[in-house]
């Protein structure tokens, strides 16, 4: 049984030289999106994993580590690309976020592949010679000579060739030297002084790390004898109850206790797929588990000869054991062999992989580690997976080494190896994740992955630029599920980052005004008799837009067709030069101008009709010249439309009901269109300024054909003008059904719907299978669930939802609000009493 010390002698980006004269290539890989996918997609992910397992002839190490994040790293991602001198509120928010993240277990799971590379030609002599030189240098306490440039270049080329064999969806890249150093450090410090992984490749340093200097040798103590104190206690130690490895990092003096668990068999009847992803779903164990697979790919020809040999030996054993009555055991072997041979007969591409799957759990004390090991065994074994596992006695150290690159497979690891086909091992779908969100941007939610919290960021600008989608986000959920809170906190973040926000507020108490007004210059147009600002398009918009917008507004308000005489009249009156000539700079002026025309004329009659409309109580925001006009450049603009009555779809589509529509509804419909048209002009005005329209009631935008058309236009063209949309909806099908361009809304959040029909509609809208009863149950019962005896959900579980991100990945998230107490208090105050 071998005993080991640090195998690495020298490493650089993506390459690691070892004491044994073997050079390893090391890559970081991306996890494939897997969460909540339909079965077809899952088969695809399994297929890609199968291809990965077939990529390397011979040995390979696949590993995944749970990586702590530094709050500062998260905040850096939050402020990337934002000019903080221009946006001091965002700087404050970032600072507050940093404080809030402190103490949270932040982190994520990251994937690694490491492969020992073959020595060819001259390197067959050179590498063993080098490692001997290093040993000698170490013995003489001399500096190890660095690996020469030419050798590094040759190895890099060799590694690049190998990297091409990794299926592209994994987006492999050579692990940076800092990342490799981190990996070793992490292995020594699990549950102890573990540090955050470096964010990416280091930028400039010409730093060539000498492994010995950077990565220290750990002090290893299997069974934790050094904790036992007296010699008597050490002598009477029961090794069976102390199956763990105590690792002390000499550089920190911190001890980590780790338990290595080996998977020995599937349940007798196998695992189903999808569903049997024991590694892909390892985080469901509720433990922080790192895993590694030491795999050895076996060629097809060899598999067949091995199978033939096994068959011969099995036949011989039938003969030998015939007398002993052990036949039933052999029958099992024989049927397994038969099944296995059949797979290779059926599938000409299938290959065999002999692998050892090691799972590592840890704890700050021996008892904690033993307990974690027991829980993991329970999870993989009796309680969930029914797999056969073991925590091997006397092999903990070798198994620990086997999870690291640069280490030749220890013999005990070979003994524990299991044999299966590549596609069967691929069913573990080990490199998958349910993480969503962008690398930078503003945090909108948190996600719990691998027992660690990660911030879900959205970067609307980068995403729309790179991925050709509209700058649009939609949330759907029942009343009180938390979508308004989500939209408000997102609008608030955008505002603080320097975007302009236009809100259509349909709440009677003016929630949006309050949410946006804190610390910001916010202009509020309350479309009612209490209006304090005017939104008269002739006063607000530049002349060329004003005529067009006013014309379409009046057309809906006074119900004439675009080819009618009335249209001609307004077209003339609203024309720029004409208005200049007659000083018609407001709607009221236009109305008075029309009334001043001869009484019998069409103009006069139109003037009278306009006067009738202007006398309704809501019309103040349009016809009262004493009110100041809104400023199109205000950072935040809120249109309060709560008092507007909108016609139902039925009233719009049925001719006789249309003609009988009440004046209020006619006015409401026209105003709604006007608000939307104004918002579009404001948001589209400056192609360098991000401006976002937000509405909690999508129905008010998509409910009528005119606004629905505007909405579509916005989704198609908004990207070029940096114009974004945020929607909230109670019923996805009713609200988005008429919108052809709905597919351009990439980011969607589905929140709780206790009604099953609405839940199914929501699932279909977000792109998941509405017939999948498990998913329906999640939406109806497991998103911010309301316990039977309570009236509100558990405060800890508020704001849960299924998020689809710009890259079409799905994941369960929990919406978060602003970190700053000033803004958080406002949003919280608004939603107090409501279920957020």
């Amino acid at each position: 049984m071998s005993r080991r010390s640090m195998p690495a002698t020298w490493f650089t980006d993506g390459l690691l030289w070892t004491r044994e004269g073997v050079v390893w290539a090391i890559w970081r890989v991306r996890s494939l999106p897997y969460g909540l996918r339909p079965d077809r997609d899952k088969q695809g992910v399994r297929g890609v994993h199968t291809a990965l397992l077939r990529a390397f002839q011979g040995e390979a190490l696949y590993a995944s580590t749970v990586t702590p994040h530094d709050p500062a790293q998260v905040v850096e991602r939050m402020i990337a690309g934002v000019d903080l001198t221009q946006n001091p509120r965002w700087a404050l928010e970032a600072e507050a976020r940093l404080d809030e993240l402190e103490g949270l277990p932040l982190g994520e799971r990251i994937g690694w592949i490491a492969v020992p590379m073959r020595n060819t030609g001259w390197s067959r002599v050179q590498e063993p010679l080098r490692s001997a030189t290093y040993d000698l240098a170490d013995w003489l306490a001399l500096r190890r000579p660095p690996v020469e440039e030419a050798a590094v270049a040759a190895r890099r080329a060799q590694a690049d060739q190998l990297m091409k064999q990794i299926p592209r969806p994994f987006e492999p890249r050579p692990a940076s030297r800092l990342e490799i150093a981190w990996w070793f450090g992490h292995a020594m410090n699990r549950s102890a002084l573990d540090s955050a992984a470096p964010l990416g490749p280091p930028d400039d340093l010409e730093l060539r790390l000498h492994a010995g200097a950077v990565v220290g040798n750990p002090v290893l103590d299997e069974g934790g004898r050094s904790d036992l104190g007296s010699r008597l206690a050490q002598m009477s130690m029961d090794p069976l109850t102390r199956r763990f490895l105590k690792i002390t990092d000499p550089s920190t003096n911190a001890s980590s206790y780790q338990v290595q668990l080996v998977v020995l068999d599937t349940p007798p009847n196998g695992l189903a797929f999808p569903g049997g992803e024991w590694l892909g779903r390892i985080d469901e164990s509720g433990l922080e588990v790192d895993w590694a697979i030491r795999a050895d790919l076996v060629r097809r020809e060899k598999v067949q000869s091995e199978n033939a040999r096994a068959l011969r030996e099995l036949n011989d054993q039938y003969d030998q054991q015939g007398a002993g009555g052990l036949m039933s055991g052999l029958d099992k072997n024989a049927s397994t062999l038969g099944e296995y041979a059949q797979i290779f007969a059926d599938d000409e591409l299938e290959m065999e992989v002999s692998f050892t799957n090691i799972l590592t759990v840890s704890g700050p004390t021996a008892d904690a580690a033993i307990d974690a090991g027991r829980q993991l065994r329970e999870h993989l074994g009796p309680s969930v997976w029914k797999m056969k596992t073991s925590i091997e006695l006397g092999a903990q150290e070798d198994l620990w080494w086997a999870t690291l690159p640069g280490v030749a497979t220890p013999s005990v690891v070979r003994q524990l190896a299991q044999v299966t086909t590549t596609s069967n091992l691929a069913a573990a779908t080990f490199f998958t994740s349910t993480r969503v969100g962008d690398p930078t941007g503003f945090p909108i939610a948190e996600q719990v992955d691998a027992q660690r919290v990660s911030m879900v960021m959205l970067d609307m600008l980068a995403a729309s630029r790179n991925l050709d989608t509209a700058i649009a986000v939609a949330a759907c959920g029942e009343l009180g599920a938390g979508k308004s809170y989500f939209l408000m906190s997102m609008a608030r973040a955008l505002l603080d980052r320097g975007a302009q926000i236009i809100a259509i507020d349909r709440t009677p108490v003016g929630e949006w005004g309050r949410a946006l007004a804190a610390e910001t210059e916010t202009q509020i147009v309350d479309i009612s008799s209490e209006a304090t600002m005017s939104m008269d398009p002739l006063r607000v918009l530049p002349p060329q837009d004003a005529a067009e917008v006013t014309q379409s507004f009046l057309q809906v308000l006074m119900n004439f067709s675009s080819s009618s005489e009335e249209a001609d009249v307004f077209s003339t009156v609203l024309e720029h030069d004409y208005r200049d000539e007659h000083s018609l700079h407001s709607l009221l002026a236009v109305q008075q101008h029309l009334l001043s025309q001869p009484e019998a004329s069409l103009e006069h009659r139109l003037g009278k009709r306009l006067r009738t409309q202007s006398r309704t109580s809501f019309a103040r925001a349009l016809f009262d010249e004493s009110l100041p006009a809104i400023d199109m450049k205000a950072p935040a603009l809120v249109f309060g439309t709560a008092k507007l009555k909108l016609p139902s779809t039925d009233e719009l589509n049925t001719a006789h009901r249309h003609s009988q529509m009440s004046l209020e509804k006619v006015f409401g419909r026209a105003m709604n269109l006007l608000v939307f048209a104004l918002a579009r002009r404001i948001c589209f005005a400056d192609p360098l300024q991000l401006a976002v329209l937000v509405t909690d009631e999508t129905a008010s935008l998509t409910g009528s054909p005119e606004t629905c058309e505007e909405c579509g236009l916005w989704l198609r063209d908004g990207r070029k003008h940096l114009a974004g949309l945020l929607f909230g909806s109670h019923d996805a099908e009713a609200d988005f059904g008429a919108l052809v361009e709905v597919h351009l809304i990439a980011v969607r959040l589905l929140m709780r719907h206790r009604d099953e029909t609405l839940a199914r509609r929501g699932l279909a809208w977000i792109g998941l299978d509405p017939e999948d009863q498990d998913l329906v149950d999640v939406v109806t019962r497991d998103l911010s669930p309301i316990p039977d005896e309570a009236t509100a959900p558990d405060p800890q579980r508020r704001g849960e939802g299924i998020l689809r991100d710009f890259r079409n990945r799905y994941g369960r998230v929990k919406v978060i609000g602003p970190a700053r107490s000033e803004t958080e208090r406002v949003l919280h105050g608004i939603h107090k009493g409501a279920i957020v």
Partner: protein
Amino acid sequence: MSAGRPVKFYTRARKFPRLLGKTLDGRTLPGGPYSIRQAVVAGVVLFVMAKTISWWGGSMSGVSRGILIVAAVLGSTVVTRNLPTFPRNPLSLLLGLLRVITSPSRGRYRNRAITIPAGGRVRGAALIDDSPAEHHRLGEAPPPSQPDVEPEQLREELPFLDAGTATAAPRPAGVDVAPAPTLSRVSSLLAAAASNTGTHTGERDE
């Protein structure tokens, strides 16, 4: 693609117990079949019993010696019959167990057991010119009995040493005495006392 099949490991297709139930000429072995492990253990038992016969069988008759040997050999095959073979072979298990039992009491570093040499008083003295000009440096000089740099380094490298019984490390010859200014009899006595106190403190920690 074996997509429809349940996901399984097929280790059983390759790993099964290889037993010997018949002789080469086809006769059934009595009490068989035997595994190679059983045969090896039986062989070892037979060898050991035969070699130690003078020790245990001094007063026995030849027959009873024979019976005892046969019984021991048969007994060993019975005992070893039901030992698990998979996944690890028993030898590996045994070595693993030995490894844990015999593991060093302070863990292993660079593949070597960590040993901490017992502390000991350093002997020998050197004289340093005690001209008055040096006096003013007394305040900033290290304590006279400070061990040389070597154990310091070791301690830096292995800080856990401090947690245990560690005290002084061995001092290489030639640098036995600290290079601190030796000023007077009184101060060197004080220094010696200080060094002793240091040692005791370490022991008390334990």
